[in-house]
């Protein structure tokens, strides 16, 4: 995808978002520590833009996605949503009713199409549920809208009364997408939407999501651990490590010219489907740091091959190193990191 998404208007603005989970111990549930699942994350999503969010498991991607729309309550921070029509919404201050209205504009698509659909409901019931809950359509109009949505995501309308078990993984993911689209949202948070699918089916769903983005003028926060998928769909990409963003840049720039050692290592770890490209791999030692007990200074320093004394004591600042290219690394200016040659 080209990086020419309209940059003029901002749809979502996240500032210093934090989500800490308490670690409780004993019968009295004394709080003995905090798991900093999301730790001071800021970014924006523009209209009709896909922001890709990558990171290893446990880095806080899912928690971030859910905290934004308050599917789980964030600990601190600010989330502003600027709908196409109407006043800006300060998501953190919404009451229960306000939140329900806001959720029409921001929807989730889940990873596992086998567990995210109620097995005892038909497709009609699943897709129409948000329309009924938000009191939007009834009777014939409801059925008509469900049919329209099913057409939109490429499902056969005559399968409307079937149950999820009658569908394959790819088709179920289409049902989940139809449900998310039912309320005409402007933002979709897609949490690993293709990870549970076979490669030939992944391509179908990725194409569908891109078509929908263009046709319905949607914005996506696309969460995935698959860098190839992220690269394919995203305008900009943010890399997350132990609850923090460590790099964010336009997709082409990030892959060709990473400025954080962690991004470099991630890129080199992805197996390339080309036997001629068996490049020298940077194998990261050790495990992802625990967000309950993160290392001092830069969280990545114990695994970083460029780490210096300063990295152990000081946590790096989030700086704009090139236009629209943000990175949190002390040595970002001096390091010559290896990216992926594009178009090779």
């Amino acid at each position, binding site marked *: 995808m080209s990086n020419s998404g309209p940059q003029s208007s901002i749809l979502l603005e996240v500032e210093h978002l934090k989500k800490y989970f308490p670690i409780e111990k004993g019968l009295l549930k004394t709080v003995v520590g905090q798991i900093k699942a999301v730790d001071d994350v800021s970014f924006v999503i523009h209209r009709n833009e896909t922001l890709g969010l990558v990171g290893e498991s446990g880095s806080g991607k899912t928690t971030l996605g859910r905290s934004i729309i308050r599917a789980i309550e964030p600990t601190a921070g600010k989330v502003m949503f600027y709908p196409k029509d109407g006043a800006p919404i300060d998501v953190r201050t919404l009451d229960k009713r306000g939140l329900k209205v806001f959720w029409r504009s921001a929807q989730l698509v889940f990873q596992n199409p086998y567990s995210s659909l109620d097995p005892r409901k038909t497709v009609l019931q699943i897709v129409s549920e948000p329309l009924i809950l938000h009191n939007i359509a009834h009777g014939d109009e409801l059925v008509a809208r469900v049919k329209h949505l099913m057409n939109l995501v490429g499902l056969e309308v005559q399968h409307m009364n079937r149950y999820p078990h009658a569908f394959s993984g790819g088709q179920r993911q289409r049902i989940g997408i139809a449900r998310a689209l039912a309320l005409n949202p402007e933002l979709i948070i897609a949490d690993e939407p293709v990870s549970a699918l076979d490669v030939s089916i992944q391509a179908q769903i990725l194409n569908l999501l891109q078509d929908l983005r263009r046709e319905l003028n949607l914005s996506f926060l696309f969460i995935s651990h698959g860098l190839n998928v992220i*690269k394919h769909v995203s305008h900009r990409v943010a890399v997350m490590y132990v609850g923090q963003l460590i790099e964010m840049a336009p997709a082409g720039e990030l892959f060709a010219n990473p400025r954080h050692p962690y991004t470099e290592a991630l890129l080199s770890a992805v197996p390339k489907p080309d036997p001629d490209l068996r490049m020298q791999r940077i194998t990261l030692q050790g495990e992802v740091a625990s967000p309950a007990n993160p290392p001092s200074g830069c969280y990545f320093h114990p695994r970083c091959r460029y780490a210096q004394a300063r990295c152990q004591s000081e946590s790096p600042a989030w700086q704009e190193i090139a236009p629209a290219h943000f990175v949190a690394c002390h040595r970002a200016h001096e390091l010559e990191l290896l990216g992926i040659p594009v178009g090779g």
Partner: protein
Amino acid sequence: MDNASILSVRNLRTYFTLDEGTLKAVDGVDFDIPPRKTLGMIGESGCGKSVTAYSIMRTVLPPGKLVAGTIDFQRANGELTDLATLDPFGATIRAIRGKEIAMIFQEPIASLSPVHTIGEQMMEMVLLHRTKNKREAKEIVLDMLAKVGLPNPTQHFGEYPHQLSGGMCQRCMIAQALTCHPSVLIADEPTTALDVTVQAQIIELIRSLQDEFGMAVLYITHDLGVIAEVADAVAVMYLGRIVEYAATRTIFKRPLHPYTQRLLKAIPTLTTPAGGRLENIKGNVPVPLDPPAACGFYSRCLLAQDGLCNTSVPPLVEVEPGHKVRCFLVPAGEGVS
């Protein structure tokens, strides 16, 4: 049998007899693996990759049954044994399974016993196959855990799988599989559940151990990137059959079967310029329940010809040295590209 091969599979068929009919999970599979080499086996879920592996290990459970074929295995003592003829509960296969042919599985946490410590379950294998001396067995296990790069083996020896991360469990399972220095290692999606950085560590590990011990590896995965990295030769499976078989470079540079071609185009990669549409494969993988006598890919193939592709099963033909393709349209002409 190819004399150079350590494992030679011919016409392997494993069927599952169900109420609905016969599910032909593996329907005539042939391949050879020479020592020190890696055969990559790719395909989508439900194409028979794992059942092939279980058939070799002779651990297919009812209603599944190995109905035909030979699995010639060159044993360490010099004998050539056809595993397909062995009693799956007999002494011979039990001496081979785990010791000479080892397997690592996809879900490391699910494949380890949750109620035994890492040390206990690894010792079991060593005590069965290598030594009766417990102290010696413990040394072997600790040594192996260190070799697979598990940090602090003495501590983890007494821990349970839930106390370890996914990558650490996978290392333990690999260590367990390798303690008896098998001559064949079957790796069934060993890195699918892991993050890319951990995956890279595990791939490096298997490769270095292969150099050290000279194992032949059957590497099963649906990740084409991993295959490009690890395999010497590749077998592409579809609906219980191998549809294309060639050296790794050939598969990626000059795929001939329409399925392989589509599959390669369907994956987004880091090197291709971003954007545009992915070429997907229409429809889903069918279920091989009483499959008709037709090319398995017929229903999804863009090039399928009625009256040809849906009348019989195409044979696996060697179209050029070392490159076999199961497609009616390939030997005929250059039309497929």
